[in-house]
């Protein structure tokens, strides 16, 4: 019996899965080379970087061995940032905060009472978009003293390596290639954060280094997230348009690779337009549309949805067998959270008007602070994720969005000339640093 991790054992596995092992080896070498050169370029304290990387790998290992309930961590970090921003408040606050507060109060206090015999819903997740908007209104122009660049570059550099680490752990323990690896949460949750980091690096810090783009492309390819791929492709359009012709040609390779990989790994359901209705998120959306009898006039009958306390209709719940148990722990608890995507859930709970209003409010605040170009880019990861997972109610996606604001403000203030121009335009005092 060969021991795990012994060269002979690994060599045997390599030969037995030659194509896969070759693909992973090439990816691994490319990643390590790019990571090394980028660390060399952007960081000064290499020992600290290596220590951080080891910590990240250990975290990934612990999460793999014994999954920990870490879903509260992004919200905890956001809450701490919000608290800090409130204490150090010095910015204009949009009057739209009153509309959002009104909607929050309405949905919490005036939603139709739930059935007395039913389980409680996870109400907190439903109201998160409103809480995030309120947080955004008083932290969108906050200035952090601590530079965000290490976080931005560190996330982009380390994330694909953690995915490879996860693939290696699965391969080693269970002997198969994990096509949807993750770091601590879930691939659909993590990719928006990485894309936000990329937006910050490429468009806010204006660092058009192709290695960053390739690392993000490899992350998206490895993670196998469909919504992540969609937002990556959208951001790529903006990115490509900002490059020279030679760089465009080089950057087109990972896009092609990402699409090809997805076709092979995720099968027909990912990109086959003829079988799009087999995708679970599409099924839930169709189910909710069936609730409205596929008629727009029926949707308008519920201008503010059915509220946050109602279960999804049982016939729809029954149709999606196993999802209720997966998301709520009970086979019979048809909490709207089981619909997965923000779009389906909000259409049911908040109605069509609020569903449309929420992204507009996020975008509007971003446009006010960063202009429409950066606003559009920053919102893409969160918007794409809202068709797949929480999106506007997802802490990691919102964390990425908030990161863009904070990075922009930091960048704006680091350039005195631009800061004075901006303060003349927006009325924001650059001298009012929160540091």
């Amino acid at each position, binding site marked *: 019996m060969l021991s795990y991790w012994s060269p002979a054992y690994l060599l045997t596995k390599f030969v037995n899965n030659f194509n896969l092992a070759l693909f992973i080896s090439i990816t691994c070498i490319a990643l390590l080379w790019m990571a090394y050169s980028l660390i060399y370029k952007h960081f000064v304290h290499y020992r600290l970087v290596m220590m951080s990387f080891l910590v990240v790998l250990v975290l990934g290992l612990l999460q793999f061995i014994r999954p920990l309930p870490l879903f509260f961590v992004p919200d905890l970090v956001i809450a701490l940032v919000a608290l800090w921003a*409130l*204490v*150090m*408040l*010095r*910015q*204009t*606050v949009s*009057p739209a905060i*009153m509309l959002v*507060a*009104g909607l929050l*109060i*309405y949905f*919490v*206090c*005036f939603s139709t*009472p739930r*059935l*007395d*015999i039913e389980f409680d819903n996870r109400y907190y997740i439903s109201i998160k978009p409103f809480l995030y908007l309120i947080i955004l209104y*008083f932290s969108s122009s906050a200035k952090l003293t601590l530079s965000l660049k290490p976080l931005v570059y560190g996330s982009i550099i380390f994330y694909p390596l953690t995915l490879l680490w996860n693939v290696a752990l699965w391969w080693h323990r269970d002997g198969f290639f994990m096509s949807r690896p993750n770091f601590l949460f879930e691939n659909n949750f993590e990719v928006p954060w990485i894309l936000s980091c990329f937006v910050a690096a490429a468009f806010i810090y204006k660092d058009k280094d192709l290695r960053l783009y390739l690392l993000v492309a490899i992350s998206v390819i490895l993670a196998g997230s469909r919504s992540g791929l969609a937002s990556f492709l959208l951001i790529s359009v903006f990115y490509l348009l900002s490059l020279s012709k030679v760089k465009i040609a080089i950057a087109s390779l990972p896009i092609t690779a990402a699409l090809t990989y997805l076709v092979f790994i995720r099968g027909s359901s990912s990109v086959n337009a003829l079988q799009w209705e087999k995708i679970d998120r599409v099924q839930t959306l169709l189910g909710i549309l069936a609730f409205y009898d596929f008629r727009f006039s029926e949707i308008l009958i519920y201008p503010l949805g059915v509220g946050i306390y109602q279960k999804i*209709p*049982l*016939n729809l719940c*029954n149709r999606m067998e196993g999802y209720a148990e997966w998301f709520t722990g009970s086979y019979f608890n048809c909490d709207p959270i089981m619909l997965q995507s923000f779009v389906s859930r909000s259409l049911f709970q908040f109605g069509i008007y609020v569903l449309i209003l929420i992204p507009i409010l996020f975008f509007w605040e971003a446009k006010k602070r960063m202009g429409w170009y950066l606003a559009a880019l920053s919102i893409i990861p969160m918007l794409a994720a809202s068709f797949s997972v929480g999106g506007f109610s997802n802490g990691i996606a919102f964390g990425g969005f908030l990161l863009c604001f904070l990075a922009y403000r930091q960048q704006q203030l680091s350039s005195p000339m631009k800061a004075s121009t901006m303060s003349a335009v927006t*009325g*924001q*005092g650059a001298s*009012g640093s929160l540091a």
Partner: protein
Amino acid sequence: MSDQSLPPACSPIITLDSARSYLKRKARYLLLWAIAGLLVGVGVVLITPARYEASFLIKMPTANALNEFGVLQPHLIKVVPPAFDAKKLLLKPELFSNSSLVSCGYSDTNADRKALVKSIYATEANYGSSVLVAVRIPSREMALRCANQLIADVIAFANAEKNNYVNYSLQVNKNSNASTIVNTDAALTAPVRISDTPVSPRPVSLVIGLMLMGLLLGLLIDWLRYVYAWRNRGEEASH
């Protein structure tokens, strides 16, 4: 949010100190709005009749299925009528019997029939083999009476449909007889459950909600006044 003592040219930047001093200055004004909202909430709670909820689950009748040629399938059992049809019985105003209306405290008017539909929640359960019903009525006793009458109506409707189906099946399948085919009646799966306390209105949520809405309205009105005063001052200055 707003500060009416600020000159028009002053920066609109808000700090925690400015928010705190604003709240301190306007505390009485905002408190009045909050109290007004709270009083409205108390009023709404007082005038809204309390509603209790009765809920029950009825298992639909079953019988042998027929194939496309009308031949009885001894090994295939189907739900007749499906829970979807039974649900429709409870969600169409014109289908309520007079006794249902009376038991639920309504009279035979169009408005009351619609009101009864609005107080009923009905949906399919267990893959269409059962129908889950909840009805919200002003008193516990009446809720139980209403639920019992609705149960009787649904069971009578479902059994009649099933009996028609079974009779037809036997007529077109002369070789089969009633003793050998599946023929189960609709039945209540568990006793009717009635909420111990009213499910609606929710006094705490309502009072807190309206108090917060009052506060928010106060802030909004003050902010609108501030914007109006600011613009007026700007226009006066330009003249």
